[in-house]
């Protein structure tokens, strides 16, 4: 339900429905590249062994007590304020993790379908704006090559082939690295991924999988050892995303953090987020 005016927004700030405060320990990153906090403690998730849809009840969701079905039908839960602190300048992406898989190998050069296709989406079901990444759980090899996905796009067209994405070698092989997979020209989202093709071996199998997710907010932290508080109306101009699936048991949003760092680690990350039901 929409807020009528600024006073209504102030009332929500004064009495938020939920406050999520969490800490994540640091991890080693590559400057300027995307890294997943899925397996980073606390609230660490496990490397998937099958292709599965994930929800707010899945271990690894950073706001795990947002149980599905707690929001009445016809109402919504939206982010209204976000606070973030870290040791180093970092861009935090707050994402809804939709589905993931694991068990792909960095040495198999035939078309890989292990634990694929990804299951049908239960949130953002048309796939519009859904991103796809190769998420590395165990470091793959030091030989650089490229990979592509075979996927169904936002229009339901199957058999789409993404553009080549670099994978393997430094910057593209480290555990927790997510390598974003470019789409075929004309596509704007992904409904499901059927397979993954490496052009050549990276020389070490490691373990990686396919993750589908929807970015909800992007929050920059520009200073060292500092905090930023973003009012989603006055500081982010309306980026007050509504969490999907909160009224239906088993389908609630699985909130997950991705970081892009200025240096080779974000440092310890603390976030506190206010959500409002309306």
């Amino acid at each position, binding site marked *: 339900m929409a807020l009528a*005016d600024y006073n209504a927004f102030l009332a929500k700030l004064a009495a938020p429905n939920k406050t999520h405060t969490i800490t994540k320990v640091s991890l080693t990153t590559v400057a300027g590249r995307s890294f997943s906090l899925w397996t980073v403690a606390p609230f660490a998730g496990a490397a998937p062994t099958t292709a599965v849809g994930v929800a707010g009840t899945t271990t690894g969701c950073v706001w795990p007590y947002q149980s599905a079905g707690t929001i009445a039908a016809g109402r919504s839960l939206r982010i209204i304020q976000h606070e973030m602190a870290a040791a180093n*300048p970092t*861009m935090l992406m707050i994402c809804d993790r939709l589905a993931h898989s694991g068990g792909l190998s960095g040495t198999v050069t035939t078309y890989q379908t292990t634990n694929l296709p990804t299951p049908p989406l239960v949130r953002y079901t048309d796939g*519009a704006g859904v991103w796809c990444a190769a998420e590395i759980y165990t470091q793959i090899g030091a030989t650089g090559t490229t990979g592509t996905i075979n996927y169904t796009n936002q229009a339901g067209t199957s058999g789409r082939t993404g553009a*080549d994405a670099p994978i393997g070698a430094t910057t593209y092989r480290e555990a927790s690295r997510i390598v974003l997979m470019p789409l*075929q*020209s004309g596509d*704007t989202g992904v409904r499901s991924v059927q397979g993954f093709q490496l052009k050549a071996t990276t020389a070490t199998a490691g373990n990686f999988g396919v993750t589908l997710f929807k970015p909800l907010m992007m929050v920059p932290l520009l200073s060292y050892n500092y905090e930023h508080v*973003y009012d989603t109306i006055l500081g982010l*101009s309306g980026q007050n995303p509504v969490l999907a699936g909160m009224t239906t048991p088993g389908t609630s949003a699985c909130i997950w953090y991705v970081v892009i760092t200025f240096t080779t680690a974000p440092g310890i990350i603390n976030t506190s987020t206010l959500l409002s039901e309306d």
Partner: protein
Amino acid sequence: MANITDVSMVLNRFTGGNFGQPQFESFWKDGRVSGAAAAAPIAGQWTSLWQYEGQPGAGAAPTTVAVPTNLTAGNLGDQRDPGGVRELWLTAANITALAAGYYMIYDRLLHIGNLSGTVVGPQTVGGVLTRNTSGAGNQIWAEVYTQIGANTVAITASYTNQDGTAGQRTQQVVIGNTGFREAQRMIQMPLAPGDTGVQSVQSAALTATSGTAGAFGITLLEPLIGFCLCTPGAGVVRDLIAQRPGPVKILAGACLALMYCANTTTVTQVQGGLHFIEV
């Protein structure tokens, strides 16, 4: 801002009231073109990300003159046009990138490719604008799709200005040779003194051969918002209600695209998001 009256009204639209239809459209672009690493940028020169791969997928190099829209492959925003008599407004934008520089989001109004780096004299551009047809604020850029030659030459364009005066000519700028010939290079073509916009471009002309045909084109664009990205990785967020340049009206059918003036020779990767409401 004909339809925007006050903060409470905007806030109401942010949360979906009165057909606010808020949209958050995320995007990312990798420094790869046609399956290979993109040409290294030149510090201090502009680079087009139109053909960079990512999500949405890459835009194609144009051949004949065309008017890209929000349905054209490569449109950064993937935004829906507003319904009824409502207007679409960009109210927030964030961006982070691997490489420092000044990044600019623009409406790609018209483009043509397949111009030759060896043809001396006028090469036809043509086409008719369907957005910002008054021409106010529109700019003319040369855009290189396939590397042209190593000879330093000059380029001008013949155009019709914001007042409908035909036969205007841009000031000469350098094209060709290192820094001015690589694929994805964007070179702004300053308008004649006194002109503030462009309704159409009739032709573009090299003063001499660059030595290699390659392929370049002319892009007619309207700048929308710029970001100085000084902290690669951490990025920047722009609240367009409280910060410059204020809310940006997005014309129906707008084809949003990205280019940047590089600080370094690092090929960039960009991630960002755009937030729209209808008013």
